[in-house]
Structure formats: C-alpha cells, structure tokens
C-alpha cells in the first residue's frame, strides 16, 4: 500500500499514528483482509485531503479522521465478521477462539457455542485425569440412581466405574460429536 505523504510534518505524524492504530485493530485478520481494509481507509483519507494547502493539512486530516471515527470502534464489527468467515473456512481452533472472543457479545448463540467449547476442553482434561487417577475418573453408576461422567474425588459406597479403558474411546467420541455439533452451530450463527 502506498503511504500518503504530507508536506506538514505534524500531519504526517498524525497520519502515521492513525494507521498504526488501524493496523493494530486488523492485525488479527489474514493479510489479504488486512490490506483490503487499510487500503480502503487510505484511499478515503487521500481523496479527502488531496489538494489541501500545507497550512490546512493538519486541520483537514484531523477532520477526516474524526469523521471516520475511532478505528477501534468503527472497525470492530467488520473485523469480528471477517474473523468468523475465516474461522468457518479454516476450522482452525485458534481462529474459532479468536472469532468467539470478538463475537462473544453478539448473542446467546455464541454464549452457547462458548459453553460447548468449554465442555469439549473439559473432556480433553478428563483424559489426563484418567491417566493420573484411573480409579477416580470414568463413568460411575450405582445404587440404582447414580450416573456420573467425569472425575470423582471420593467414590461413595456401592458406586462403580463401568468403562475402564473404554473411557478413553467414549470420551474422545463425545469430544468429536460435540466438536461437530458446535461447528454446525457456528455455521448457523454465521449464516444469521
């Protein structure tokens, strides 16, 4: 992207500082999306300030930037939207987490998505717990009404772990099913 050059050094500094903020706001996005958003704002600023006399450059530039709004506020919805698209395309957990973080306040759907994701992570931890505390982790039943899947610090009398090493397969299968369902939910939310 071609940088705009101003005759007035103060204007140049304001411009450079503004684009530092813009770059920080969009840095979470893929490079092509970053470039697109930066180029669009750069073009707007160029069109608004071209032809301004050096004595007025600062005033014109400050007005233009003010009219555009704070990049942190104005760009946030677009960045969140583009991040969701990237996450849906890539299925990469890192991108999904970032999209989730950016969209967490967008509605109950995303909160539900976050909770299920947390559940998936918890199931991951259960595998570690099963390796460290095999007798206390698993699927417990007993006394006719006790059903518990997870880690039990103190096992009540009459309650027994039923799965043994099958726990690993069951746990991984549950994680996979929840991950699949959550991705479907994510796609539904994205399509809203």
């Amino acid at each position, binding site marked *: 992207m*071609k940088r*705009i050059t101003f005759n007035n050094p103060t204007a140049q500094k304001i411009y450079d500082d503004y684009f530092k903020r813009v770059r920080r706001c969009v840095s979470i996005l893929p490079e092509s999306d970053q470039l697109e*958003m930066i*180029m*669009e*704002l*750069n*073009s*707007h600023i*160029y*069109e*608004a300030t*071209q032809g301004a006399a050096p004595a007025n450059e600062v005033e014109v530039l400050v007005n233009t930037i003010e*009219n*555009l*709004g704070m*990049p942190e506020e*104005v*760009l946030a*919805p*677009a960045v969140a*939207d583009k991040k969701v*698209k990237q996450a849906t395309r890539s299925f990469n957990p890192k991108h999904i987490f970032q999209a989730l973080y950016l969209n967490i306040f967008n509605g109950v759907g995303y909160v539900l998505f976050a909770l299920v994701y947390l559940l998936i992570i918890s199931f991951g931890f259960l595998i570690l717990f099963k390796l460290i505390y095999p007798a206390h982790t698993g699927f417990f039943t007993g006394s006719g009404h006790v059903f518990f899947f997870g880690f039990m610090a103190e096992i009540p009398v009459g309650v027994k772990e039923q799965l043994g090493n099958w726990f690993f397969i069951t746990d991984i299968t549950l994680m996979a099913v929840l991950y699949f369902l959550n991705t479907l939910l994510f796609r539904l939310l994205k399509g809203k």
Partner: protein
Amino acid sequence: MYYICAMNSEFVQNWFSQVKKGTLSYIILIILDEKEYYGYELVQEIKTHTTLEVAEGTLYPLLNRLKTEGIVDAKWIEQESGIPRKYYTLSKDGKATLTEMKKIWSALETAIQKLQK
C-alpha cells in the same frame, strides 16, 4: 388554556438513530443505481442528498457486507496518484433487491400517510 408538551428527546433520538441505521443501505442502493461510486465520493453524495450525519467509517463495513451479500460489486481501479480507488456498483441481484425495497418503502409510506391524516 395552555398545554406544555415536553418532547421525549432521548426517545426521538434513539428512534431516529434506528431509522438511520435501517435506511442507510436503501439510500446507498438508490445512489449506486445511477452509476458507480468510490467510497469517498459515495459519502459526499449521501451528505449532499440527505441530512444524515453518518460516521463515515461505518460506511465501509456496510459496503463490505453488501458486497458479501452479493448486492454490490466492487473493484479496485489504479489511479495516477498511486493510491487506487475502490469503485462500487449495484450487481444484478442488487438491482432486483432495490426494486423489492422500493415496493416495500412505497407501501410503508402510503400506510403512514393514511394513518397521519
């Protein structure tokens, strides 16, 4: 006998901001129906024809959303200055969308005018 009417300005302001939000896409489509515009030019056109005070930065995310929806097409065109302009035009789907929006707007306008009589 005198009546003192206190307008609830906060309510009116909130209502106007919702109206603005809802009509901005419609205004953009009407403007783009004439010819193609680049971002800054489009902002100026909105300012010329309406009294809406639009935060200019919010216009670009909106244009991008319209592009994602397939309502507008966009292309970068190189300029002598070395700083390209992104031109927006109404797509074929956009033209059909605008026709439908015009119908809805017209029906709404008629209904409100009837109610206001």
